[in-house]
């Protein structure tokens, strides 16, 4: 592949020999998000070892997840899967009493064809706890796609929403809220009145797991445009899953939720709002504008708000302008991040990405292309299923100012004088909405700021001569 920068977006597909986290890692953030859940990963020691090392300290905080570790007897079907899972689930019920148990299927359960989907409903009625099955395995998916499989499975469990009854429900709900707060000082009532002033629009459900503070920030942004978010998938508790149905509009906040989107559209008859993702001020504005336009609402003050955010980022923008970036690709946030960084004035050579759903990410891709055109920046290569070996060869030639990469390559690249930022941090940091744009740049600029200080010391390259060519 040539390193020439082209004028339209180019898509390529390599060998898929790249480093990423196993999708079962979604357990790490989802068990914290859904407070009354228990995640049971049905797999081997390999899966367990990965989780234990990837999650580090969290394991010691009595996590609400565990391995159902398959032993030789399970593999050779000497033991009865159903009885074994029942035994473990009863144990979990006794010790933790969760509102839902989520079974995470792994490579092993795929290969031995363990019928988790078949067993779950039977066991569910037997033990009286809902069991959701998500096949988040490394045979089919990468890293964040794990969340996608869990949310897609959960979409089936959301209560049905029938709009005519819903209107009635809503008035009742409003009444109860007023009753509740009648003892509070008058300002409370003003707030309730204000919320009543919100324009009437069909219910909107947002999909994607976010820390609750970020979720309320995004809800607040929409509220400013008179849009009420009627629910989140997932909610803070399993018992609070949003109701779905015909006439409900859904919108994703993360680029890796394509299965969830498909399930919401096809199985729950929801209408999908295809928008860029609210990452960076440009993305957030485009996301809100798209939602507003679907509901026929005119936005107000959005442009000023975006402008104001960009101004507040000025010190960071000065640092990144003109610098080049190389995304090795491992968490599917790459397109949105690249688009934001290009808008910040950076040059993106290559966007590696594990999997690209061109339909689900369509609006994001258009925004990427427009951003490049508006800023007269060369279009980046988009490389699906990248090959890390080839990428490192390309990087050697391009010498980017920053490589966004997994932890397996970060230290070796740093030793070769290439600044790196671990891609995993973007998954765990708060990066959505106007408020958090600064946090993204804080991450991106950290290696640049750190290495600015070290540059003059004269030891950028820290490897022995004979190892230089080794990849």
């Amino acid at each position, binding site marked *: 592949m040539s390193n020439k920068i082209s004028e339209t977006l180019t898509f390529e597909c390599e060998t898929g*020999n790249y480093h990423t986290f196993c999708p079962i890692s979604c357990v790490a953030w989802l068990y914290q998000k859904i407070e009354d859940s228990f995640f049971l990963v049905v797999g081997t020691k390999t899966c367990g070892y990965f989780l234990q090392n990837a999650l580090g300290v969290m394991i010691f905080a009595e996590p609400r997840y565990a391995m159902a570790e398959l032993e*030789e007897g399970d593999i050779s079907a000497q033991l009865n899967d159903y009885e074994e899972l029942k035994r473990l689930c009863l144990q979990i019920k006794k010790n933790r009493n969760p509102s839902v148990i989520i079974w995470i299927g792994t490579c092993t359960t795929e290969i031995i064809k363990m019928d988790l989907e078949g067993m779950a409903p039977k066991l569910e009625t037997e033990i009286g706890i809902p069991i959701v099955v998500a096949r988040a395995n490394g045979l089919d998916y990468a890293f964040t796609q794990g969340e996608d499989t869990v949310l897609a499975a959960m979409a089936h469990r959301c209560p049905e929403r029938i709009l005519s009854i819903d209107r009635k429900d809503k008035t009742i709900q409003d009444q109860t809220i007023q009753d509740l707060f009648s003892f509070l000082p008058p300002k409370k009532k003003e707030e309730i009145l204000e919320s009543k002033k919100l324009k009437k629009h069909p219910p909107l459900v947002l999909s994607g797991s976010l820390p609750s503070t970020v979720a309320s920030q995004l809800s607040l942004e929409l509220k400013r445009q008179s849009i009420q978010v009627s629910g989140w998938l997932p909610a803070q508790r399993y018992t609070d899953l949003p109701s779905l149905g015909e006439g409900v509009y859904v919108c994703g906040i993360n680029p890796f939720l394509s299965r969830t989107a498909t399930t919401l559209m096809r199985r729950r008859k929801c209408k999908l709002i295809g928008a860029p993702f609210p990452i960076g001020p440009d993305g957030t504005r485009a996301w809100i504008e798209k939602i507003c336009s679907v509901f026929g609402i005119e936005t107000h003050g959005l442009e000023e708000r975006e402008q104001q955010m960009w101004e507040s980022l000025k010190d960071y923008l000065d640092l990144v302008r003109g610098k080049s970036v190389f995304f090795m690709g491992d968490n599917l946030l790459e397109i949105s991040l690249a688009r934001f960084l290009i808008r910040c004035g950076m040059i993106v050579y290559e966007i590696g990405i594990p999997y690209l759903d061109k339909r689900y990410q369509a609006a994001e891709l258009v925004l990427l292309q427009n951003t490049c055109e508006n800023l007269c920046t060369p279009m980046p290569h988009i490389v699906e299923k990248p090959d890390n070996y080839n990428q490192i060869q390309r990087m050697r030639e391009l010498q980017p100012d920053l490589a966004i990469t997994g932890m397996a390559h970060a230290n070796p690249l740093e030793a070769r004088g290439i600044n790196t930022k671990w891609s995993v941090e973007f998954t765990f940091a708060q990066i959505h909405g106007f408020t958090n744009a600064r946090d993204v740049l804080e991450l991106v600029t950290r290696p640049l700021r750190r290495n600015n200080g070290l540059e003059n010391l004269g030891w950028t390259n820290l490897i022995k001569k004979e190892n230089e060519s080794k990849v």
Partner: protein
Amino acid sequence: MKLAYWMYAGPAHIGTLRVASSFKNVHAIMHAPLGDDYFNVMRSMLERERDFTPVTASIVDRHVLARGSQEKVVDNITRKDKEECPDLIVLTPTCTSSILQEDLQNFVDRASITSNSDVILADVNHYRVNELQAADRTLEQVVRYYLDKANRQGTLNKSITDKPSANIIGIFTLGFHNQHDCRELKRLLQDLDIKINQVIPEGGSVKNLKNLPKAWFNLVPYREVGLMTAIYLEKQFGMPYISTTPMGIVDTAECIRQIEKHVNKLNPNKTFNYEPYIDQQTRFVSQAAWFSRSIDCQNLTGKKAVVFGDATHAASITKILAREMGICVSCTGTYCIHDAEWFKEQVQGFSDEILITDNHTEVGDMIARIEPSAIFGTQMERHIGKRLDIPCGVISSPVHIQNFPLGYRPFLGYEGTNQIADLVYNSFTLGMEDHLLEIFGGHDTKEVITKSLSTDTDLTWNYESQLELNKIPGFVRGKIKRNTEKFARQNGITNITIEVMYAAKEALSA
């Protein structure tokens, strides 16, 4: 099926990868699904490795599931052969390939025809052995492969070196303080006027393995990895080996005496006497013997401790605590279930109880029941200690990044005894200090929320904003609260809502 939250020893392939990537110019190819190359992250992060970890995956995906790997594995081997010209490529099976039951040996045979590198299939079964057993086995397999090869080609050199020399077997990547231990062992052998023939696998070259038999004896510092190789070399070449771990003053002396015995047996002209060296080191170079005698250590007499870790470290530390420091080891244990007999024999008489388990909750319950003054264990025991407010010294894998120190911290040899003495003493004094603080009411630890001393405030937080504030993690909540109130005061706002909170965040971070 087993409900498991945590494990002491990793899966088998990790052991194989640790051995393979410790050798110079050896590449491992895992037959595994996407995401199983987690080993690379561990090596790169924990060992802070500068070079790319020589491990790649031949990815098992849906297509492989449907049709078998076919050419894929062979192609990946020959590709790696061309790209990096390794001396050896080790095809590593994982739990996934164990069940797929593809004929990996066949792939290896085919690939070795076309590639310049040697190619072998690691002989480990995921469901039968753990990380440590697999590492032991893989090391033996590699050594055997190259000695057999040399034997066939007639390049095997069986004559021993003129001067006494030794191989150190079992130093490898991600081992607990292995690098430091290796340096200490080299120093020890140098002091004894013994040449180092080879250190394997860490930094060793497979091309040199044919020279292993030139050494006078093998030194196997750790019980877990290297013993199989040493036994093989003994059987095949009559090479004696020493498997006494030189940890602690008594065992280090014991190890040196065994070395003396073997060296003198092979050396008819000159008789070595290491006793003066042992005496000098014990009494004046190492501080540990003197420490045991000092009044500091007197205060530790009869204090209760619990030890848990791998067989080598748990056994050695138990002996040091009981024999060299007079500490009462209430319970000692190991997760090396496969080596339980040896362990029991070692700690016989040094501990009240013995616990053999790989279930960390059993260890936790035992610690809670005994309530020792200090724990010596792995990272897991450190966390158990945190929860129970008992200090813990980390003496064994599994460990976090802080147990890969940059400074010189061996556990073996005479410098190791100093390090261990520090570790033990610091664990206990911290515990005693803590205890005294509790008795006398502790430090003045009143929570400081605002920077001003006056508590009256003219600001009101509405219900939602209070809820929102409570969602913010405790350790930054105070700061967020202060900042928000500062922002509100500056802008003449008296009523704090969620909007105000986030406006404050934006304003202050700008």
